[in-house]
């Protein structure tokens, strides 16, 4: 009997004029960080095709904003003669600095664990592709001793504490029929770089479609000019800083001189 119903479902799917798909677009593909940047609202527009309205209602959507791929240094704190200090560094390569999910329901209700691990759904799996490289023998010993799982969770906890890793459920607004929007808040300390926005369409715990869009976050204006000058021409930048400080100090003295 069960075989019969699933067969029927398969037939009804194959008779559909087009395959089930999900498509996503961003209202803004470029986010500009200037002196007054205090975070941004990113709006994702999406559409589900190839499903009837009733079928659409039974699906789940997960949207993931992740990026930019960055390298981190993880050091374990150690106590030496009463004082806590950072130990040798273990390099963690290829982990996202920002990781935000929006979904219809909590992620563990949408997708099975091996799927979440495979596609990196949820903060816990955000750094699965990262590799660990110890800086020296002492760091290698610490890596052996703690293992990558503990380092990974330390990295995730640090990111969650700064608000860079967040999961939101109940965050998908369905519009007419198969149209949906997701509003994702980007924090004020969003790092500059390239991001990937991925959407996954799930039904009964199985992935049936996915799509991706690119997002870039750039410094602009005076912000960018200061940053570039400081990094490309540090001597000139240093001298300018001193000249500004000298003239500000002199101006203050002149202004208050009675």
């Amino acid at each position: 009997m069960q075989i019969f119903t699933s067969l029927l479902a398969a037939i009804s799917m194959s008779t559909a004029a087009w395959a089930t798909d999900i498509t996503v677009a961003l209202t803004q593909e470029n986010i500009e960080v200037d002196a007054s940047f205090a975070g941004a609202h990113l709006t994702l527009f999406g559409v589900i095709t190839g499903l009837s309205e009733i079928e659409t209602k039974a699906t789940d959507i997960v949207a993931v904003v992740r990026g930019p791929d960055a390298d981190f240094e993880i050091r374990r704190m150690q106590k030496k003669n009463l004082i806590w200090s950072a130990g040798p560094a273990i390099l963690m390569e290829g982990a996202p600095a920002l990781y935000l999910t929006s979904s219809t329901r909590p992620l563990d209700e949408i997708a099975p664990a091996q799927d979440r691990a495979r596609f990196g759904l949820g903060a816990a799996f955000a750094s699965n592709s990262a590799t660990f490289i110890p800086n020296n023998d002492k760091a290698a010993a610490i890596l052996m001793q703690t293992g990558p799982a503990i380092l990974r969770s330390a990295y995730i906890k640090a990111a969650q504490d700064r608000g860079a890793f967040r999961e939101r459920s109940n965050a998908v607004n369905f519009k007419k029929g198969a149209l949906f929007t997701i509003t994702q808040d980007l924090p004020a300390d969003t790092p500059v770089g390239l991001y990937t926005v991925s959407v996954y369409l799930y039904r009964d715990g199985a992935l049936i479609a996915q799509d991706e869009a690119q997002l870039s976050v750039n410094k602009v204006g005076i912000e960018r000019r200061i940053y570039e000058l400081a990094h490309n021409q540090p001597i000139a930048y240093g001298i300018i800083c001193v000249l500004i400080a000298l003239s500000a100090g002199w101006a203050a003295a002149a202004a208050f001189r009675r």
Partner: protein
Amino acid sequence: MQVYLPIAEMPVDPFIIIAMGGAVGFLSGMFGVGGGFLMTPLLIFYGIPPVVAVGTEASQIVAASVSGVTAHLRRKTVDFQMGGYLVAGGGIGAIFGVYLFRYLRAAGQVETVISIAYVVFLTTVGGLMLVESMRALSRPHHIDTPRNRKRRVAWMAALPFAMRFRRSQLYISPILPLLLGAIGGMLAAIMGVGGGFIMVPAMIYVLQMPTNVVIGTSLFQIIFVTALTTILHAVTNQAVDIVLALLLLSGGVIGAQLGARAGVALKAEQLRALLALLVLAVGARFLFDLVTTPPSLFVVSPM
């Protein structure tokens, strides 16, 4: 309202930063100190990365010292000859300090070393000041005991190349101010301070300079050393945030003027006792953070 700092790469509330600059400026005007040893910790406690706090504070001290030295130039209470040797020594110390800073940063130890340096210097200086001011306050009548200026330690007199410093009325070896300048320069580079809180007592008690030229000469030296430190930090560590410096400055200059006026109303010993307590409190905070178990056993920092 928020302002995004281009080098620290974080948003801050500009009014809080200006208020911090104003508060430290007020205290530095009131007590006649540079304020770097209060400003840098405050920035670190606020959440500015310690590397940026140290580099940026150097540029702010340039401005504060320029604004302070003009009065001394008018009163001719700057010993340029002595200042020159202090600057030369300070330059060497600052170069050494900035490179040491870079090495420590790469080794991940810079936060710990900054904290230890603050604990050592703040508790020593604060403790000495407190004891001294308490003694002065407990004396029923203020008796100014004249110091014996001619008493000079043997090793100091034995140093070669002794020369005359006319403005300071001294006949000493220039090795002494060079050495003292170098220590001050190193502290400036590592701790984000001007070094006045070490230089001023050292100039009075070690070099035995007349007190009236000490402050002006110290400010004169600090301008050059912190200017060099600013450039070095900008070059080696990309750690000078000019937006942060300008915010601090705008609060600092107004605070310093108001503080100088408020300071006139208080007695010198009371002022010193208050400052000593403040210095000790900041040192205690650093010590507390060093010895208590950190909230997270792992430090994760972006490369």
